[in-house]
């Protein structure tokens, strides 16, 4: 805590410098005390077990046995050689691309529409956020049973009317899109709210200046609004990338990675290693790969929001 002295002189107009210095010193020591509970909590739940995972990933630990063997890079080599791992990686990339385009486009488009509709704005915002506040558990079960189900869902009803539409969840080519559709249905309202708030911060003078110069709506969007919300857009891009690599709930609830691993994600792949076959070492290795993607994302994220934090 030697740095405390270096910070203390910042206080100006101290009449009695030495007395002031000691009280400030104590005050900043208190700061560490105030920071401690949060850091201890986060480190004991996230950091220490995370570090432990790094260690487990080079062992054959089964989660119970207290004397696991060191196996070197075996777990990594085995998962890299597993075709399901590649499928999962591919699916995570598909998921990321879907989420970087469709909800972003809808969210931004609707934000622009609501920007001009001052009176109906609040009502639409609430409606579009409703799926976002509802639990993944209920959303998944409602779509599973009321829409996709060939027995009780809308799909099943259409089939009874003579339209021959198979349930998209049972088809290996369409299952991932069917699950993504539900997650996007639930998610895009969040992007709308964020984009709308960012758009509303665009300086009114810039918009008026563009209007006077005779710019049309598209030009105003392209040259005034879009540059103005660029930092928010970038931050959301990184956030979507990170969360796309972590996605779990909707997949696990709706398909559990099936049919035939066609919707498997890194997260469900890791989970089934740990809790279905008790191969904690392999689960840890997959977790490490996910962590690597997360780290890349968080470096980008830190760079971006760090800029904003420094003002």
């Amino acid at each position, binding site marked *: 805590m030697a740095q405390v002295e270096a910070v203390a002189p910042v206080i100006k107009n101290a009449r009695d410098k030495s007395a002031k210095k000691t009280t400030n010193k104590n005050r900043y020591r208190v700061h560490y005390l105030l920071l401690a509970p949060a850091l201890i909590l986060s480190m004991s739940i996230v950091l220490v077990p995370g570090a432990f995972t790094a260690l487990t990933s080079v062992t054959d630990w089964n989660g119970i046995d207290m004397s696991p063997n060191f196996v070197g890079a075996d777990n990594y080599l085995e998962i890299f050689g597993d075709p399901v791992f590649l499928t999962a990686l591919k699916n995570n990339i598909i998921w990321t691309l879907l989420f970087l385009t469709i909800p972003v486009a809808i969210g931004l488009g609707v934000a622009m529409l609501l920007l001009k509709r001052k009176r109906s704005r609040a009502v639409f915002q609430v409606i579009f*956020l409703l799926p976002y506040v509802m639990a993944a558990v209920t959303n998944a079960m409602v779509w599973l049973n009321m829409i996709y189900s060939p027995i009780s869902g809308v799909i099943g*009803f259409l089939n009874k009317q003579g339209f021959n539409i198979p349930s998209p969840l049972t088809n290996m080519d369409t299952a991932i899109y069917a699950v993504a559709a539900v997650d996007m*249905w639930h998610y895009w309202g969040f992007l709308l709210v964020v984009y709308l708030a960012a758009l509303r911060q665009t300086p009114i003078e810039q918009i008026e200046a563009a209007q006077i110069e005779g710019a049309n709506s598209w030009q105003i969007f392209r040259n005034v609004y879009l540059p103005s919300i660029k930092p928010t857009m970038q931050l959301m891009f990184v956030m979507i990338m990170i969360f796309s690599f972590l996605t779990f709930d909707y997949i696990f609830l709706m398909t559990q990675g099936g049919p035939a691993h066609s919707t498997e994600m890194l997260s469900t792949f890791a989970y089934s290693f740990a809790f279905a076959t008790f191969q904690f070492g392999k689960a840890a290795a997959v977790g490490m790969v996910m962590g690597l993607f997360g780290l890349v994302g968080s470096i980008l994220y830190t760079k971006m929001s760090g800029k904003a934090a420094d003002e």
Partner: protein
Amino acid sequence: MRKSREQSLRMMPGNVVLVVLAFTALLPIFLVFLNSLKTAPEVVRNPLAFPAVLDWGNYVEAWKYAKFGTGFKNSVLLTGTTILVVLLTAAPAAYVLAERKIKAARPVMVYLMVAMTVPIQLFLFPLYAVFAKAGLISNVFAVGIIIAAINLPLAIMLLRTFFLGIPKELPEAATMDGANTFQVLRHILLPAVSPGLITVGIIVGLNAWNEYLISVTFLQSESSYTATLGFLSLTGTFAVDQGVLMAGAAILILPIVVLFLIAQRSFVDGLVSGSVKG
């Protein structure tokens, strides 16, 4: 008059898009309530049709078999634990990070941002082993604390912006009058950021209430099931009776929707202040 008609004509395509999207957002929710009042054969015949008679019996059965009595109690305990732990630890930390008077502030911020993006799968498995050894499996308070730790970085970042919004003169004046850091924090700063505390409490509370991965992993005995897990247990038992299943979904959705409608202002503020860079 003509101008307004022209204007409304120009707004038409946009309005159509908004109404169609509102319809897609609400249709699945509407289907929940519609089918929660129907018998199983009615649901299977046509999920889009109105019920012949309103059958409230589904709600009684769903409540009984999903054990929502225990479930809601556990959900409240879990969510309460999370909110309490997050606010008690995040508020002082956010204050320190907003002040930036200690050199560790910067590395701590970087650590928190990394912690925010760490996949749960990276720490879940060792954590599970430790909790199993310590006999904390199926303990809602323990799960509430894990969820608190996961939400902590976001909460600190959000609260920090609220602390940054307080005018510097406020705490300085109190310090001049001889108040120590704790007193300033307790009596001056915390009341000043109380809207932030409410916002963070709502966001974190919703995350805890809706949480799935941690709950399903750590809560294994039926007596520790939260409302969401109780609802999921219906899907096994009532896979054939969609009416009961949808009544269960309705019971789960209703309190969230009501709470959201009441607190939407704070909720939207919380979503936005974490993500919009001005």
